[in-house]
Each structure stands twice: as C-alpha cells, then as structure tokens.
C-alpha cells in the first residue's frame, strides 16, 4: 500500500467517512448494466439457490431453485437465467459499426487492413463482489459443455440450446474480467474500493455492505459504526440485518429458515406425487405452491438488500466523471465482445477446459500489457494516482525555468532543446533515463541530462533534452517545445504499450512445451451420474 493510500485510509478512520482514492472514474459504467446477484447452496459446487437479475433497479427478475439438489429444478433455473441474460447480450450484438482491423493475409503473410464489424457498445454485467465473479465463471463452466438434444439425441438431460450458449458467454465474461482495466464484468466491491479509501482493511472492504457503509454513509453515524452494523447486526431471530452479498449464504439463514422451508417443500412434493385423485392433487398442489412461494420469499429477502446496495454503489460511482482514457479501454472490451460474438456465430466449439500452451502464454502477455497500460493511463487521467507515482519516484512535476535551443549532430540537425524543470519531487533518474510527458494526448519523450546547481529548499533543477514530437523541420513545430513558466509532469514510465512478440501458432508448439497439442478434440460433457443428486 502506498503512503498516499495509507494516509487516505487513516483520514477515513479519523473523519469517520470514506476518502477519495481517485478523482475520476476509472471504469466504464454502462447506461444499462445487467446486475446479477446470485446465491448458491452451501457445500455444493454449481448448485445455485436463486438470483436477482435484470437491468431495472425497481423490477429485478427473481429466479429460485426451491430444491437445489434436484437436477431438473437446477436446469430450469439456468434456462430461465438464459432467458433474461441472452436477450440482453443479443441487443448489443446486433448494433454494429464498421471498423478496421490488422490481419495477416494467409497467402502473402503481409499485414493488411480488413474491414470488419465492431459492436457499437457492449453489455456489462455487474455482480456484488469478487466471489460473484468466480460464481459467474463456475456457472459458465457448468453450462458450456451441456449437450443439446440436437447435438446428442441420447443425452439423458438435454439442455435447451440457450443454456450451453449462456455458459459460453458467462465464461467469456469471467475470462475477460481477468484482464486489468476491463469493464465487461465488474465486481461492485472492487470498483468501489478502487475509488474510495475506507477506514477498514482491504479484507473488510470485500464485504459490500460494510464497504458501502463508509462510502454511502447514513446520517449521524460514523463509517465504522455503520460498517459494524452491516457486518454483524442480527434481528431477534438471529438473522443478519445485512445479508452477505453472496453467493454464499449465512449459515444461520440456512439452518434456521432455509432448511425448514426446503423440508416443507419436499414434503409437499412427496404428498403431491402420492395424491390419489384430482381433487387431492389440486389441494396438495396448493400446498406445494405455498411452500415454493415461501422459499422464493426467503431468497428475495436475502438478495434484495444486496441488489439495492449494488445500485446505490452505481449511483455513487456515476457521480464521478469518467476518466479520459476509459473510452479507449472500453473499445477494447467492445472488440473482445465482438470477437466472441463472431466465434459463436461461426459455430466454434465452447472454450476448452484448459488453455493450450500458446493460448495461456498469449493471455498472460496480453494481461501484463493491459496491466501496464492501466497503470499508466490511470496516472495520466488522475492527478491523485499520479501523486502516488510521484511519491514513489516514478514521475515528477514542476515548472519549466529555462529552455535552451540545441540541435542534434549529423548531416540534418534536428531540434533537441534543453529544458530545465524545477521540482519538489524526487524521481529515481538514472543516467540518460528516458522520461515522457503527454503532449496533445501523445507521449513526447525526453532524456535526463543532469541536475543543475545545488538543490535549494528541497527542490531540484532537472535538465532534460527533448527528443521527439517536434516535427520534421529544423525548427520545432509551434507548441511542441515546453516554454518557460509551463507547469509540466514527466513520467519515467511509458505511456503506451508495445505489442509483444508473436508466439507460434498452437500447432507449432515446440518440443520444450510438449509439442503440438494435436487435433482439438471436442470436449466431452460432464457426465451426469445418479450421484449428482445427493
């Protein structure tokens, strides 16, 4: 933790409310995000209990699995979920604009520009917490290999086609969420914690209720008091006033409320099955419906507070102006979305269980590049982030005190003006270190020449030689050289990321990495065994 964020946290402790950790919003918020608040059954992988989902904060869809151990009911839940999520995604898939992309011509091997479609906007999923992102990944994994009746007429539990399709989309969203700076799938706790510092630890910040207590403070309370209430306060029945943001539920809820309700539901179902005539069945169906309604009410009662909290979080985030470079990163999200849309349309198989060596290496390289890009862009967009980089010696700001024109040697001398900057910062400048400033949104580079004179009252005079972005002529273009009195900020880190080396195609995987993976075999569905139902 940098000292600046430590200070922000301590100020939050001392003032009793969250303090800014950013002055602008560093993530895209869609006009119409799809909020998803899922709950799962304790102790079982991929056995959802229910969810609130939708784009309308006042009218979420409530989906419930009254008996999570029943495979049919689980599958019905997933189909319902697909009915809500897929139309939302499709709406974005259809609205496209023309764009260009560099591709390698398979015949000539040349890089050529190709006209392609780019979705004009992309869908956005918002879950309450990081555990929610993991759950989206898990749901995606559990669905994408499901077989439809068309694929496998023998499948004992054929899935409607939209279920494996949703699985592929959720997998894509969850995988994209691992890319630094992406906004296709966001965890509300992460986004809030990025923009505010609370008076509690980062571990405690993962509790949405407690985190929001500091940021969206009720009147007359301190953040610490409100957060404590959100964490621990229970009603007379021993139930948490602020239920966990899921997908895990509170054990007290499971044991005291949910288990008896499910038991009543099971009994009603057994009774209905045993009904001997229509009249009796009608009666018992009424009991079953009542039992189911009870479980639905329970699930709603545990998800609704979280649902509302997510929207409150969105409100607070929207109050921050969007950072300048968010749009550029969002465009990458749109490319990612469009790319997956195209793979689905092209009939490609679902994402495999494991990446092959080349795909894994490509993903790692891309994410490292995006991480570096994100760090640079956030600093350039936000003086508070830049302050942290200045404190750590990776940037410096100050006033230009002198500009001396100079030229490069050689046949065609180019301008290489010497610029002196007075700064109170203490950059870690090595010999001939490169530094960059933003000039009309593009980085202009300069080289560290040396310190001038003796430092007085803690400030230093740094002499730089400007290297580029001054035009082709002997004289620099107007406005391309800093002038005396300008207040500038230089970074030691680069503003833009170079693309990495191209890795071999998977079928060219070298012997050091196991050789080519061979024909991609279609991934088998997870076997459905009797044991699935406990």
């Amino acid at each position: 933790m940098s000292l600046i964020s430590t200070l922000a946290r301590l100020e939050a402790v001392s003032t009793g409310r969250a303090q800014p950790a950013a002055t602008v919003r560093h993530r895209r918020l869609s006009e119409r995000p799809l909020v998803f608040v899922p709950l799962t059954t304790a102790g079982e992988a991929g056995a959802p209990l229910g969810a609130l989902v939708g784009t309308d904060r006042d009218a979420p869809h409530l989906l419930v699995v009254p008996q999570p151990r029943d495979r049919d009911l689980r599958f019905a839940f997933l189909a319902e979920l697909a009915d809500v999520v897929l139309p939302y995604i499709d709406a974005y898939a259809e609205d496209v604009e023309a764009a260009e992309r560099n591709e390698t011509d398979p015949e000539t091997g040349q890089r050529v520009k190709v006209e392609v479609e780019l979705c004009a906007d992309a869908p956005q999923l918002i879950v309450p917490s990081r555990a929610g992102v993991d759950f989206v990944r898990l749901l995606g994994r559990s669905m994408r290999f499901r077989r439809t009746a068309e694929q496998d007429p023998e499948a004992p539990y054929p899935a409607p086609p939209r279920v494996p399709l949703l699985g592929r989309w959720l997998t894509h969203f969850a995988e994209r969420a691992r890319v630094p700076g992406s906004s296709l799938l966001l965890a509300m706790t992460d986004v809030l914690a990025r923009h505010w510092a609370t008076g509690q630890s980062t571990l405690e910040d993962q509790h949405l209720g407690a985190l929001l207590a500091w940021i969206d403070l009720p009147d007359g309370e301190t953040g610490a008091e409100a957060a404590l209430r959100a964490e621990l306060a229970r009603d007379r029945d021993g139930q948490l006033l602020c239920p966990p943001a899921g997908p895990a539920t509170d054990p007290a809820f499971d044991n005291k409320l949910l288990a008896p309700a499910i038991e009543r539901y099971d009994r009603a179902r057994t009774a209905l099955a045993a009904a001997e005539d229509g009249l009796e069945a009608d009666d018992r169906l009424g009991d079953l419906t009542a039992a189911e309604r009870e479980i639905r009410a329970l699930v709603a009662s545990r998800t609704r507070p979280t649902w509302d909290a997510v929207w409150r979080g969105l409100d607070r985030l929207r109050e921050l102006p969007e950072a300048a470079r968010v749009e550029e990163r969002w465009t990458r999200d749109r490319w990612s979305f469009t790319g997956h849309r195209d793979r689905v349309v092209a009939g490609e198989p679902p994402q495999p269980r494991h990446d092959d060596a080349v795909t894994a290496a490509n993903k790692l390289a891309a994410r490292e590049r995006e991480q570096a890009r994100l760090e640079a862009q956030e600093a350039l967009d936000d003086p508070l982030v830049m302050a942290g980089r200045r404190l750590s010696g990776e940037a410096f700001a100050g006033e230009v005190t002198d500009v001396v024109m100079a030229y490069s040697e050689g046949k065609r001398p180019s301008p290489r003006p010497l610029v002196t900057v007075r700064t109170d910062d203490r950059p870690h400048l090595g010999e001939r270190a490169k530094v960059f400033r933003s000039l009309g949104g593009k980085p202009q580079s300069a080289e560290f020449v040396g310190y001038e004179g003796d430092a007085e009252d803690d400030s230093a005079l740094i002499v730089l030689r400007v290297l580029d972005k001054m035009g082709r002529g002997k004289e620099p273009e107007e406005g391309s050289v800093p002038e005396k009195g300008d207040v500038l900020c230089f970074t030691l880190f680069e503003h833009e990321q170079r693309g990495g080396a191209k890795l071999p195609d998977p079928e060219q995987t070298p012997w050091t990495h196991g050789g080519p993976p061979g024909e991609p075999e279609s991934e088998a569905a997870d076997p459905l065994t009797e044991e699935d139902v406990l």
Partner: protein
Amino acid sequence: MPLPRTRGTALRHRLAELRGPDVPAKALDARALAALAANPGCKRRAILDGAGVNKAALASALGSPSAFGQSQFALTRGNAFEAKVKADGGAELLRLVHEKLDRSAEPPAGARVPELTATGPEGRTARTALALREATGTHGEWTLLDHPMLALDVAGSPAFLEPDAVVVHPDGSWTVVEIKSFPMLDGSADPAKVGAAARQSAVYVLALEQVAARLDPAPRVRHRVLLVCPKDFSNLPTASAVDVRKQRAVTARQLARLTRIEDIADALPDGVCFSPELPAADLTAAVESVPATYAPECLSACELAFHCRARSRASGAVTSLGRSVRAELGDLTTVESVLSAARGESGDPDDPAVAALRRAARLRAEALGTEAVAACR
C-alpha cells in the same frame, strides 16, 4: 508426602486456573493446531489455546461473539461424501491412494479395515497404535484405518486428533488421507482451502510420526498426503497428492514455540481468569492483560477476532487496517500519531518516515485540490 510437582504439572495447574474453576479444557483439534500458524506472534491466542480456553464462549461472554458457523447443507453433503468415499471397505479410496501415491505397489484388491472402537480417546489412541503396528508388520497388504485417533503432545497436554483416514501401504509406509467436500474442478481446487487442508494434514503427519518413532524399525510416514474431493460438479471422488513438507515444518515450529506459554503465563498478574462465567468487565480486563497482535486476517481464523479488532481500533492501532500498513511508518503505530506527523504537528522531520508522510500528504492535498496542479492530461 506429596511428590514435588514437576514443571509440567505446575504449568498444567496454572493453565487450569486460567480456564477457571471446573471449566474443562477445550480439546485442540487439528484445525485449531493448524490455525496456530495464522498468527504466531499473538500471545493472547497462544495462552488461550494453550490453556484450552473455549474462545467462542469467551468471545460471547465478552460481548463480541464469533461469526463462525456451518450450514447444515454443507455438513450433510460433507458427511455423505465421506461415506461414499469410504464405501465398500474403502475400495475407491485405496484405488486413489494407489493411483496417486504408490503406483509401483500391488493394486489393492481388498484391504484390511481393523476395528478401532474403544472407550475414551486414550483407549482409541492405544487401539489405533496397535492397529498401525499390526498393519505395518503384515507386509504386502493394504490397510485402511477409518477415523483413527492420534495423540499429540501440545504444551505438555495431549491433544487428540482424528484424521479422516490413514492408509498403511504394502511396503509398511503410512499415508494421511484428508477428505474434503469442496470440488476439484478440472483438476484444480480453491488454493486457500487446499492450503488449510494441507496444514491440517501436516498436524496428522506429525502425530503419526510420534507413533512411528515408538516402533522398531520406525515405519515411514509419507510427506505427501492424499486429498480427496468431489470431482467437478458430481460427488464422485477424485484425489490429488499434496506435498506437506513445508506445512509440517511450520507446524512443528509452532508446536515447539507453544512451550513459551509458560513464560506468557508467568507474566500474567495473579488471579487472572478467563472463565466465561465472569462479568464482562472482569473478562475484558483479564484478556487485556495478555497482549494481542490483531490483524484483519484474524477475522477468518480466530473466535476472539471481533473483540480484538474493537480493542485495536479503540487504541488507534494502524495495524487494524492491515499488517502491511505499518511497513512505511517506522516507529509510528497509531492513527493519530501518523496523521499529526503528516500534518506537520509532530514528529522529527529528519525521520524518513515522517518526511515521506509529509511529502505524501502534500502531494495528496495538491492532487485533491486547491493548488494549481500540474495536470498531466
């Protein structure tokens, strides 16, 4: 004439006093022993665990009840899964041990599953030791010990431990088997949970090694344990070998350090007692008399954490915000001392921590606000 009391019995007596009259010691299980490594610097936790104080009861009596609980769904599922793994005389379990740990051995066709029931933990421990000796003697066969009982000396008192299973291989070596109900999805599992399982298994390995040391020749206790979990979304068992050498070394170290509780106990004022029967104010004072090193990680590892957090926050300790917060603060340990140093109201400007704080405060104020800032757009 009474025999002179040894150091050990004196300590036991002292610890019983700390628990309070007629309060039985809470037995330490493997999970609790493994959790010792979560915050080894905490004297409060060391003395309470060493004395067998029921920390959950203590926390409730202090007015800051712990928030640990288990869902009956998870419990049911866990029990059902373990039963399934051990069905048919442990055939599937042994198959997994053979496949993951000992392929060169004869595949298990059947296994001896000795009866381990006996009266009381001491009896069961003795029965287990006997069964282990017999099994080790019968070379060439597989033996499955279902819920054996092992004793481990913890600060002078025995802790009784019950692993899910121990398998004796045909070569006479022993393997700890840990059965968990979290899934292995496409071959990987939640690393935090695997880590916890590995630490717990390491405790069993240590206890088994004490049993093995009493045999001649001492059989080998394998340092790779078998972790059995449900496969993907099913409840079919799958397994992975987990190397617990590191966890074993850590736990051995922590157990050795527990002998320090004698020093901690000696430093306590007379009459300190942690009985949950006492009034909250007395208990608070008693607990306060042992220093704690609270950190947010305690919240998921110690029943007393909410109490300690409240005290830590009340005292303004910066570590209530996380251990790492202190890294750059040097000697400054409280929220107010840091903020006042940052504001320039206190602290030695030549202290690099203070100087850095002031620079940080200045840069932060500049970025947030009022001064004409070098906007780096």
